[in-house]
């Protein structure tokens, strides 16, 4: 059974139910039930028209639940006949669904969970596993999120930026159970790009593709991190790079720059360099200047200091770093790298050890500890003769 095909139908099925007047929370429950039923039945008995099958099953589930509710409340059963589907506007429905699931009234973790379920068609169990929380906890998080956004009216267009932040989180954070969250984020961003013409949507899609392309090179066989400069570039996925660069170029030609396009441009310059030494750091600094201008983000300034260190030498990088707050995440790691390149090995080793103590995850902690250990236990390289 094609699981991705099944899940890709989720927004359309949900859209049909909502257009028939079913409230969002009930419609979403009915669609999730239909998906679970499809999982059970399709492998042995695949439907001729998967979309129609899902709509029929979801609609029946909704009627069953509504009747049970109605009976419980001793009310007349008002919904009975299956009404004809309303005017077809699948694209608008899909877009509205993204806005609803990323609504600003939701916390980031709730928006992520709701998006993965209602737009992505993942089961609560799959989402719970991906974020390492009990299934009951995830079920509560999703049903609270649905209650929060159930009454939201869409008389004004939503802000695409809120949707992009949620998709970025799905791509960038989370563990991996049986669901590949990065691939799922790419699929959902592609689907969004098909529903709305917006250069930042294209920018985020390009950013994801360009980073996903490097995935095989990012870790060694033992699971340890491989820094960008040391990655085997033959292991990068050239098809994804080609696609990402093409999407980015089209977006940039619209001349409506945003943070995701600027980040994607940096990733594209790395992807373009046949070797780390051939990286166009001068252009990368220029893109970080744009990013700082667009976001005024301390993280962008920190990354800019790294790029300056490569473009103009470690002293220039350290000077750029000196202007920043030293409590920023990864500040010590950047300082360590620049001091090492400046030939100051003992300061670099001390800073790498400090960075390891502050690292937010085990892979980075181990990597930084190894850097400190390397500097503390190996003699300095011989000076060039």
């Amino acid at each position, binding site marked *: 059974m094609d699981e991705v095909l099944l899940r890709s139908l989720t927004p359309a099925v949900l859209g049909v139910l909502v257009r028939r007047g079913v409230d969002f929370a009930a419609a979403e429950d009915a669609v999730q039930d239909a998906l679970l039923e499809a999982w059970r039945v399709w492998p042995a008995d695949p439907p001729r028209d998967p979309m129609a099958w899902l709509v029929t099953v979801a609609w029946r589930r909704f009627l069953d639940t509504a009747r049970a509710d109605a009976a419980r409340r001793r009310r007349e059963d008002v919904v009975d006949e299956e009404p004809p589907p309303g005017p077809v506007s699948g694209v608008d429905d899909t877009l509205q669904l993204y806005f609803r699931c990323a609504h600003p009234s939701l916390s980031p973790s709730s928006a992520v969970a709701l998006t993965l379920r209602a737009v992505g068609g993942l089961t609560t169990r799959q989402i719970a596993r991906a974020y390492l929380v009990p299934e009951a906890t995830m079920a509560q998080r999703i049903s609270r999120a649905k209650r929060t956004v159930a009454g939201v009216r869409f008389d004004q267009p939503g802000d695409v930026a809120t949707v992009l932040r949620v998709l970025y989180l799905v791509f960038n954070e989370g563990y991996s159970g049986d669901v590949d969250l990065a691939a799922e984020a790419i699929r959902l961003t592609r689907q969004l790009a098909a529903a709305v013409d917006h250069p930042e949507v294209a920018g985020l899609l390009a950013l994801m593709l360009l980073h996903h392309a490097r995935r095989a090179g990012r870790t060694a066989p*033992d*699971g*340890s991190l491989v820094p960008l400069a040391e990655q085997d570039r033959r292991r990068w996925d050239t098809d994804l790079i080609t696609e990402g660069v093409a999407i980015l170029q089209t977006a940039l030609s619209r001349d409506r720059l945003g943070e995701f396009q600027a980040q994607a441009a940096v990733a594209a310059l790395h992807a373009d360099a046949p070797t780390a030494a051939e990286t166009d750091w001068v252009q990368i600094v220029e893109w970080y200047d744009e990013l700082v201008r667009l976001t005024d983000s301390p993280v962008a300034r920190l990354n800019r200091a790294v790029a300056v260190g490569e473009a103009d030498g470690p002293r220039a990088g350290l000077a750029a770093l000196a202007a920043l707050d030293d409590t920023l995440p990864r500040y010590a790691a950047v300082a360590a790298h620049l001091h090492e390149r400046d030939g100051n090995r003992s300061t670099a*080793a001390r800073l*790498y*050890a400090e960075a*390891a*103590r*502050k*690292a*937010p995850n*085990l892979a980075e*902690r*181990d990597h930084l*500890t*190894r850097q*400190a*250990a*390397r500097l*503390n*236990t*190996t003699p300095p390289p011989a000076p060039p003769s």
Partner: protein
Amino acid sequence: MAKYLLLKHYRGGPTPVIDMPPFDRWTPEEFSAHIQYMKDFAARLEESGEFVDSEALAPEGTFVRYDGEGRPPVTDGPFAETKDLIAGWMVIDVDSYERALELAAELSAAPGQGGRPIHEWLEVRPFMTAPPTITE
């Protein structure tokens, strides 16, 4: 089956058998071998159906307490030189207390400098269980 917590302390256990320098004074190869041993150990326990959970903690924590209605929480720390510092844990589900000790000892044999076992003290704590159905 019974669950046990294998608790790894940076500080606070009995006097170490080997006075171990911090990881950043090991060679990168020694450090990698140590990490690999622990990964392999966890993988073997998954294979044998005895692994439950394993987590590492960041070294700095803060003490927090309630300070009365409408007041923000009171915090204390982080303390650089706290006496007892927990590095992380592993939870195992095994048939006997003896098996829990055996596994803890195996984990304590992780290689250190020169590939020699570090003989690290690990704390083994039984989990409280659910009350049994039949009591008489």
